[in-house]
């Protein structure tokens, strides 16, 4: 109990510290850094969606970039046509959600690899489609939007203003995502992921929940697309490319599957790894990324978010070993010694009379 109080206190303090940092950071760092941090928020939303469908509901999705790109196109088109901004945001979420739902209605009947196949085809079809409908998308050139400049009264630079807007929306979406995954629906996702038979016996329709997970994931993807237009002010078919999808999956696993904090860590990794390795040698990014992912899979299967837990575990184990070595006394009795039932103490007659040898074997 004491522990619990201490934990919530620590947690509260940590949250407050993070909040202060997030509020102060854009005021003191460079426009480039603000841009990067804002991108983390954008991709955190997209990866949160991916995590909901893949981490929480256990359905492979390699198509998240398609929803991000679609949301970005909708947002860009709406803004260029002077639609009310709230409507643009809602449409940026709803249209990808609708597309995601339609795909899911068919695709979630498949499992594993077939599902991966269908989802990976979304960005692959999406890119040429985006090029084709150039009156909406600007074709291969992409489409540029200049908006979301800081109003004069705020006294902020545009990068700071955009940062605050994007972070505010991202935080709201994260609270929504957290409540969703911690609540009844999140538990249902967990059951569908671990055992569909159990889900069925509990009256949970895994079909419906899988469709729901895909729909929510696509909606988050679309919302991230809206935010992307807010920060980058430009989108092209490249945003949809399946490399982007794959890198998001990689980032999600590195951050921590089925974890909200892991999602944020993953997004930070997604944005900062190319930025950092780009300064050394951009051709090394993929190599580093692949090595990091494999190392994580081997050593930290639950992602970066599990690092503290894992360290504590390792330290505890080392300590135990140390203690045991110090005691060097009688080993504690393992569970194997438990009597599991009454054993009849009959005479166990030993039979070891030798049999006549006949070494011939069948040929």
């Amino acid at each position, binding site marked *: 109990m004491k522990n619990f109080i201490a934990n919530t206190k620590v947690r509260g303090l940590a949250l407050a510290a993070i909040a202060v940092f997030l509020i102060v950071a854009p005021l003191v760092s460079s426009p480039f850094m603000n841009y990067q941090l804002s991108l983390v928020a954008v991709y955190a939303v997209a990866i949160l969606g991916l995590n909901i469908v893949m981490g929480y509901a256990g359905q492979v999705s390699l198509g998240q970039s398609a929803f991000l790109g679609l949301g970005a196109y909708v947002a860009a088109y709406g803004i260029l046509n002077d639609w009310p901004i709230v409507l643009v945001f809602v449409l940026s979420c709803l249209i990808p959600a609708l597309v995601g739902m339609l795909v899911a209605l068919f695709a979630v009947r498949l499992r594993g690899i077939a599902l991966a196949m269908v989802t990976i085809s979304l960005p692959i079809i999406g890119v040429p489609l985006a090029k084709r409908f150039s009156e909406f998308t600007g074709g291969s050139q992409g489409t540029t939007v200049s908006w979301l400049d800081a109003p004069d009264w705020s006294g902020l630079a545009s990068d700071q203003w955009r940062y605050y807007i994007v972070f505010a929306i991202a935080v709201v979406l994260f609270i929504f995502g957290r409540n969703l995954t911690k609540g009844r629906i999140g538990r249902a996702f967990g059951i569908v992921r671990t055992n569909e038979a159990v889900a069925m016996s509990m009256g949970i329709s895994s079909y419906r929940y899988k469709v729901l997970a895909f729909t929510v994931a696509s909606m988050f993807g679309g919302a991230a697309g809206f935010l992307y237009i807010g920060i980058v002010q430009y989108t092209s078919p490249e945003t949809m490319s399946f490399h982007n999808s794959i890198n998001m999956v990689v980032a999600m696993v590195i951050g921590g599957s089925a974890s909200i904090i892991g999602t944020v860590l993953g997004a930070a990794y997604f944005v900062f790894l190319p930025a950092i390795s780009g300064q050394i040698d951009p051709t090394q990014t993929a190599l580093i990324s692949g090595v990091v992912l494999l190392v994580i899979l081997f050593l930290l299967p639950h992602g970066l978010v599990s690092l503290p837990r894992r360290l504590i575990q390792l330290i505890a184990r080392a300590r135990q070993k140390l203690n045991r070595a110090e005691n060097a006394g009688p080993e504690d009795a393992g*569970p*194997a010694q*438990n009597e*599991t*039932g009454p*054993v*009849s103490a*009959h005479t*166990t*007659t*030993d*039979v*070891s009379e*030798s*049999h*006549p*040898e*006949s*070494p*011939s*074997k*069948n*040929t």
Partner: protein
Amino acid sequence: MSLLELDNVGASYGAAPVLHGVSFSVEENDAAGILGANGAGKSTTLRAISGMVTTTGSIRFDGRDITGMRPDKIARLGIAHVPEGRGTLGDLSVRDNLRVGAFQQRDRKTVADDIEYCLDLFPNLRARIGSNASTLSGGEQQMLAIARGIMAKPRLILLDEASLGLAPSTAQNVYATIGRLRSEAGVSMVIVEQNAALAFRVVDHAIVLETGRISLQGPREKLMGMDEVRRAYLGG
């Protein structure tokens, strides 16, 4: 020196212990039975011998310590484990299943002769030689599994519930063949059976497992005469 010696063998699946200090031995050309109720640890004993579960204690085969060895290495030493139920390779033809059994034989002629021998032992298989194993009936699959074991020319066969799910006449048939195999090929056997009456047609002696421990052991005649064995395993 015995062919197979188990000394204080324990085994567990995850945290659940299944075997506790089981010790027995099987001589060359000897057939031992393992009897017991469901969950007593009969199959686990066989799995321990063939290296399919992690074990404690020591298992020696032909004087050599095989505890903790990989299953394929143990098989190459001359132990053929015919597992319970699905002992065949379903996507492979009957002939290919037999060829897989003979994987360690180098000489093609011997393999061909051995296949003939198996088809003599189990004539039902002859007509199905080109069919996929998965299309065989339960009895035929059991026969194929045993035949695949024989193809390896093992010194010891571990036979797990060969009568399971078979019609009584088929089970009789299978055990008659096992008996014939014993007298002709001189191969040693460890036979796990719930149907003790069938097992007693072949084995010389047996152990009775109860919740992972040996509760009784002795020669066939002696066990068959004991009231508790008759009641529990021979149906009266």
